[in-house]
């Protein structure tokens, strides 16, 4: 969830950038997640499109997100190559679990069991 406090002394683009960085770091925004378009996010949060565009540009420069042409902006995989591949695999697994309508608790239990298996 993203939110912008109009009364805050922190600039809106910085509020947005910080929240997105935190969510990428804590994993709530997994690698491969598509971000909303600049226009859509600006309308939802009631801020100027340039503000969102600036936050996206800085996130891209810092390696948190990547732009894939007309397909939009996506969360980049973080860490070393092995960790990046792990994040991409986790994203694919999460998508499949959602597609099948299964619960997150069950999915986590299966992953834990699979990882502990010899």
């Amino acid at each position: 969830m993203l939110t912008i406090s109009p009364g805050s002394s922190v600039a809106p683009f910085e509020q947005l950038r910080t929240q997105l960085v935190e969510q990428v770091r804590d994993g709530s925004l997994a690698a491969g997640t598509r971000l909303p378009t600049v226009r859509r996010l600006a309308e939802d949060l009631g801020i100027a499109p340039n503000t969102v565009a600036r936050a996206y540009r800085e996130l891209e420069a810092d390696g948190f997100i990547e732009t894939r042409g007309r397909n939009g902006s996506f969360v980049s995989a973080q860490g070393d190559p092995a960790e990046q591949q792990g994040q991409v695999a986790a994203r694919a697994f999460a998508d499949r679990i959602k597609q099948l309508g299964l619960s997150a608790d069950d999915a986590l239990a299966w992953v834990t069991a699979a990882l502990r298996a010899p």
Partner: protein
Amino acid sequence: MTPFLWVIAGFVTVASVVLAVLSFVPAYRAASVRMQARSVGLALPAEPSPALEADFAGRTRASLIGSLLGTVLAVLGLVSGVIPTEDPPALGGVAETWLVLGGFYVGMGVGAAVRALTVRTPVPSGERFARAGAVDIRDYLAPIDRIGSRVAVGAGVVVLVVAATVSITAFGMTPVNPGLIVGGIVVLLGVVSLVVSEVATRRILERSQPAASPEALAWADATRAITVREIVTAPMSLGVWGALAIGITLTDSFSVGNQWPAGLILVNVLVLVIAAGIVAAAIYSIASRPQQHYLRRLWPDVAAAAGAAPSPASAEATR
């Protein structure tokens, strides 16, 4: 038009008018929101929300006005002779009945789409909340609805092509049975409504969702999910009903004089397969609760809490 068809058209008209009038009554509006909350798996707002009630009332009226217009247009088409039919209609007016009900669903979808695309969402003045990830149609429509509407229309087109081929090769069915023409209109209406529904749902999802709280965003998602489900109901029902109407008419045509016994068996099997598919899809749909699909996709924590708790959970829990 058979007396049965007049009764259906009359019932739809009266029910639409009564429900539209009731949507102005405060008690009914509150009850309607309570009912929707149970259906979509969300907790009611902590305080009564006139904006939410007004939104649901407006959406209900738009859908009802659309269904009323759709029904009236279908009836006018049949009564005026624009849509060719027999007097009395073949097979007790099976195809005509589905055309009238199809008009109802198409109208409902059009009404819901027009409302969703034109309504001005109140913009909160203070803090706003937005989702960090992009959404798409898969987040709002369960596979049974999303793929089912395409499969149903596809099945309708296949049956229509089979019927047209059989009619052209003239297996004792010349002149063409008017029931086939009405069934064909139902299927073609399904194709048009499928294209329109795909475009409309895409446009609806492109619209912004200004929300003052996660709870408001969850309700906006719920409303959106209800709307897109109403929109895809039209192509799904038209495809299925068109296929059945044509299949039943073909069965009837083959039965007369028993011109082509193998064809009769083939068409009967086809109709039974379609009917079995409908029953299976309906059972799966009821069991999988597609009205809460958006909750499982977009608000998994709320969905999990709702699954564990006796009453629907609040989106505030996700903050």
